[in-house]
């Protein structure tokens, strides 16, 4: 789960990580009030769960409360990367000596957390990795020992900081590491972390993503967070509610399978035969007839779908249940597009009998299924 900048900064403040003075505003008037409280030139920033908001015009500077009000009026109601902006942060405009990049994420190959830092902040870490890979400093955290003070200091030193700057930056890393552990953070980035002309380090931005699999142990944190529903279409919502993995693509063939790898491979084979998939739908393991029916219904809700390919490798999933689900979907909803079924594995004969009785044909291999559905879709398209 991605947190908004203001939510992340609330966590930062509680944990003692320095952030610029400021706060949230949901109306232009509130923005003016925040600016008045700060009593200095401010920056007004759109609260959206997407990057590149600066380039989209979602960050504006204002010298007076009335300028802040105007800036907020322009930003509120904007759409950035197709996401609506319904809040802004108003913060003191900092006297910048240097922009720094600081982050902690997971190195999936090492199976460890990794600290990432660069004295060349401001630009995205991806751009930085291309243009100045030598300026990116990394340090893996030992999963048994955690992060020690000397390691945090070495990070600061390796990033090029000296003297009085080492202590505060190392302290910043230590506190950030503690937040990562306590809140099950899978990715955090502060870009930029600002070194002010008077020598303070302040988190000017904050990105904090919490591991979805760990949300169950952060109920208290979640209570305090107002989460507008993520922008999902009805089909995506429906699939998610039923625990199915569902991704919409640009083609016209819906692929309904069991297992993520098999579904991906099915999409690939369809493409090898010259077709294009509209839908990645992984039913998951052990689906019963009702669930299979539901999967077909969700897939058919997508107007782009011109054909359906069902590819099941029975293991915990039983072919007889799959067959029953297909028959039920046809009977109850009606399947008005060409459909090809391939299913093998557990209770395959019983499943085939059910399909045959219902007058539904099936094929034996993935290749046959893919080539057949591509032919059929050509006829209807």
């Amino acid at each position, binding site marked *: 789960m991605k947190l908004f900048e203001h939510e992340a900064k609330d966590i930062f403040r509680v944990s003692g990580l320095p952030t610029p003075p400021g706060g949230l505003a949901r109306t232009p008037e509130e923005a003016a009030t925040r600016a008045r409280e700060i009593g200095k030139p401010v920056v007004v920033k759109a609260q959206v769960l997407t990057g590149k908001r600066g380039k989209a015009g979602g960050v504006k500077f204002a010298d007076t409360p009335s300028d802040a009000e105007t800036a907020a009026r322009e930003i509120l109601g904007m759409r950035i990367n197709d996401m609506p902006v319904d809040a802004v942060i108003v913060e003191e405009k900092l006297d910048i000596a240097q922009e720094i990049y600081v982050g902690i994420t997971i190195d999936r190959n090492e*199976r460890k957390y990794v600290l990432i830092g660069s004295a060349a902040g401001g630009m995205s870490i991806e751009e930085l990795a291309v243009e100045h890979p030598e300026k990116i400093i990394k340090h893996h955290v030992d999963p048994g020992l955690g992060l020690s003070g000397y390691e945090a200091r070495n990070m600061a030193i390796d990033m090029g900081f000296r003297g009085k700057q080492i202590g505060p930056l190392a302290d910043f890393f230590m506190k950030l590491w503690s937040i990562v552990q306590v809140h099950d953070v899978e990715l955090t980035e502060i870009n930029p972390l600002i070194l002010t002309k008077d020598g303070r380090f302040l988190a000017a931005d904050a990105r904090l993503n919490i591991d979805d699999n760990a949300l*169950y*142990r952060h109920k208290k944190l979640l209570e305090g967070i107002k989460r507008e529903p993520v922008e999902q279409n009805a089909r995506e919502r429906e699939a998610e509610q039923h625990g199915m993995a569902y*991704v919409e693509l640009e083609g016209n063939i819906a692929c309904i399978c069991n297992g*993520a*790898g098999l579904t991906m491979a099915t999409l690939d084979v369809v493409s090898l035969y010259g077709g294009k998939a509209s839908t*990645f739908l992984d039913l998951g393991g052990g689906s019963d007839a009702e669930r299979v029916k539901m999967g077909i219904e969700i897939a058919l809700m997508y107007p782009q779908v011109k054909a359906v390919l069902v590819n099941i*490798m029975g293991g915990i999933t039983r072919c007889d249940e799959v067959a029953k689900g297909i028959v039920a979907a046809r009977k109850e909803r009606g399947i008005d597009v060409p459909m090809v079924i391939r299913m093998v594995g557990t209770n395959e004969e019983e499943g085939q009998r059910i399909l045959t009785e219902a007058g539904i044909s099936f094929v034996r291999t993935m*290749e046959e299924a893919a080539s057949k559905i591509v032919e059929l879709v050509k006829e209807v398209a």
Partner: protein
Amino acid sequence: MAILVDRKTRVLIQGITGAQGTFHSASMLKYGTKVVAGTSPGKGGEQVNGIPVYDSVKEAKEAQGANASVIFVPAPFAADSAFEAIDSGLNPVVIITEHLPVQDEIRVIHAAKQKGIYIVGPNTPGVIAPGLKQKLGIMPGHVFADGPVGLMSRSGTLTYEIAAGITNAGIGISTAIGLGGDPCVGLTPLEGIKLFEKDKKTKAVVLVGEIGGDAEERAAAYIKENVQIPVVGFIAGRTAPPGKRMGHAGAIISGSTGTADAKIKALKDAGVQVAEKPSDVGRLLKMQL
């Protein structure tokens, strides 16, 4: 023989009294696997499918000589179960459970490494060695015939698909391992290939990868320099769009990393024959064996 398991493997099922543990322990027994004990704290003294249940791994090990574990415990408690198995020195520890917090995964993998224990998974269908009738997981046993091919995969049903193809080609499998669909898993393809190289029975290896991360590239670099036996690859997700999680938590192209094309290229550069379709794997193996 096989890797990770042998004839002496005596399996403990952690979480045996749950629906999954009960169902799959029966299926493992039926396959011929030596399932000797189960655990479920507070239910010691009961039996599931005739298998004695203990309150702790320590008791189960002492009473029944269990030396490997399969974990079906729900995600919030799965890491604790893994630590318990690691502490008792069971090896391998196969974690079937999905949706473990990644922080738990990292700690478990690290703890196992310290003791030289292999973690398989999480989010895996497990390990199967058809020649030994040892199944530590949830795979349908009948699609795996005995033979000389070592199979590794990040997926479940795609593994069965490819195993069935290998079986239909008249070849068979020494050991098949589900590596798990999460970004952080215990056994990696690189470690897997090192184990298969040392196994006298394994004459060829099949590596089934998918988009996300660069574990396949790392394995390819090792294969290029070291591996003498033939390796056949298949990578799922060639047509997956960037930035979308394709079912598995680990199956995502981030920016320009983790693409199928990069993996296929790395494998081909290492002399690995890469199959275009799952059904080509059997044919490519036949040509090389």
